[in-house]
């Protein structure tokens, strides 16, 4: 499903964000990415949906070979990937409903389906009653849930979630985790970066630990932590 083969990432300013990363994530896996701030977690995720390109090495995602992917084809790669961004990236002028529906309009889904699935997704994250609020009228956690709804609405093959519970209280966080687990059971691969040790330790999924750009640990039913 997702394969990193000898991947290096050096940013133009010289920062080495990832070094010699080899990872194979199978279809339907649930993977936590952990590591200290600045370790390279977000970089790892950005490489998956091709917001960044590797300096060296091969990446393939859901059958797309990213090294050979023509720019014209990038949209079709991304339609298989639902992304929850660390900084939400909601459109400030669109309501919660419109922000979610947006992701479906963009892939030219039929209108009736858009309406149905958008409301379903908002309901799943518990924001049906805030559908018509603008992001500036939502609390931090509510914005994060809108971002989650947007990521799942298209039923993607992979969900890439960067710190999806960073702004949520423990209860809501658990609800979101249950939601992601449910989605995972239904066949979606999930890659999630997090600092929340309680969640990682309780869920006992595969944990990939990154420190200073290097994968220091990769355990099938791991715990939170990034010491070698």
């Amino acid at each position, binding site marked *: 499903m997702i394969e990193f083969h000898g991947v290096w990432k050096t940013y133009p300013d010289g920062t080495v964000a990832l070094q010699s990363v080899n990872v194979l994530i199978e279809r339907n896996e649930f993977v936590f990415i952990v590591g200290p701030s600045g370790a390279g977690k977000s970089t790892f995720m950005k490489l998956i*949906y091709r*917001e960044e390109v590797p300096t060296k090495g091969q990446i393939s995602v859901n059958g797309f070979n990213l090294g050979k992917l023509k720019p*014209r084809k*990038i*949209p*079709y*790669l*991304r*339609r298989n*990937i639902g*992304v929850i*961004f660390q900084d939400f*990236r909601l*459109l*400030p*002028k669109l309501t919660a409903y419109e922000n979610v529906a*947006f*992701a479906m*309009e*963009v*892939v*030219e889904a*039929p*209108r009736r389906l858009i309406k149905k699935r958008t409301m379903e997704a908002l309901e799943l994250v518990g924001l049906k009653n805030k559908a018509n609020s603008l992001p500036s009228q939502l609390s931090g956690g509510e914005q994060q849930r809108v971002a989650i709804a*947007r990521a799942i609405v*298209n039923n993607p093959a992979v969900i890439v979630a960067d710190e999806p519970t960073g702004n949520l209280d423990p209860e809501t966080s658990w609800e979101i985790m249950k939601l992601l687990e449910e989605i995972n059971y239904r066949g979606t691969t999930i890659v999630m970066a997090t600092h929340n040790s309680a969640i990682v330790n309780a869920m006992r999924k595969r944990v990939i630990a990154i420190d200073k750009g290097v994968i220091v640990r990769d355990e099938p039913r791991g715990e939170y932590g990034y010491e070698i």
Partner: protein
Amino acid sequence: MRFSTFSRHIREGTKSIIRNGWMSFASISSIAVSLFILGVFMLLTLNVNRFADQVESQAQIRVFLELDTPEEKIAGIERQIKLIPEVKSVVFVSKHDALERLRETLGENADVLDGYEAENNPLPDGFDVDVFEPRQISIAAEKIKALNDTDPDRSIMRVRYGEETVKQLFRITNGIRNIGLVIVLGLAVTAMFLISTSIRMTIYARRREIAIMKLVGATNGFIRWPFFVEGALTGLIGSLITAAGLLAGYAQVIRSTRLDLGLMMFDLVPLEEAFWPVGGTIVGLGTLIGIFGSILSVRKYLRV
């Protein structure tokens, strides 16, 4: 493109104009201002052209006959001139008419002619000849002169058509036309620049939105479309306002100057005649400029 997608682009483009509020207002206004200036110059050019045509069409050939040419002879020459294909009309001007005319020309100085009356009129008989096409006036004049070649009496004394005056007039009207063209072109380019600038600003203000669209899997074509719609609509609205205002204003000008200019023997291009060329050009150009501006800007932005 499926119909629902197409209608989404239209909807999004329209919504975005409304949502952008004063930013759209600014774009529309600058389109309107530019096209208005353009329109004013178009109307000016139309009217100058019309005026030039009128002046040109008044250019005449004057034929003077030898003194004491007999009347039958005069009638014969008149008939021969009428046979020249370039000639539209021939009017006989007797030496009496000619004296009156000279008096008029001299105006307050006419007293020098006191004492010249019918019996001692020193002026010759002649014709005023109009041609169909002012530019053929010199050809016609040459042909009239050539009538002498087949006439043993060589009755035509002189043929004059103010070569210099006519040539100068052509030079002036051509000059006005060219200056008009240059100004109109310059303004069209300015307008295009302003519009593409304001659309670029619109896109700049929406760079977040574009980035997010790309990240959730929108194709470039899909991203571009609403901007085209927005550009075209902005251009269309701006130019419709301009065209309506300009033509209404022009109708007013026509109404209020009919008497004044009528006295000067000149009438403005009527509204019906100006409506399509001016209104059509403004609306078409505004829309094209809007689309073109958005193409340029979107291209440039999506490449980044």
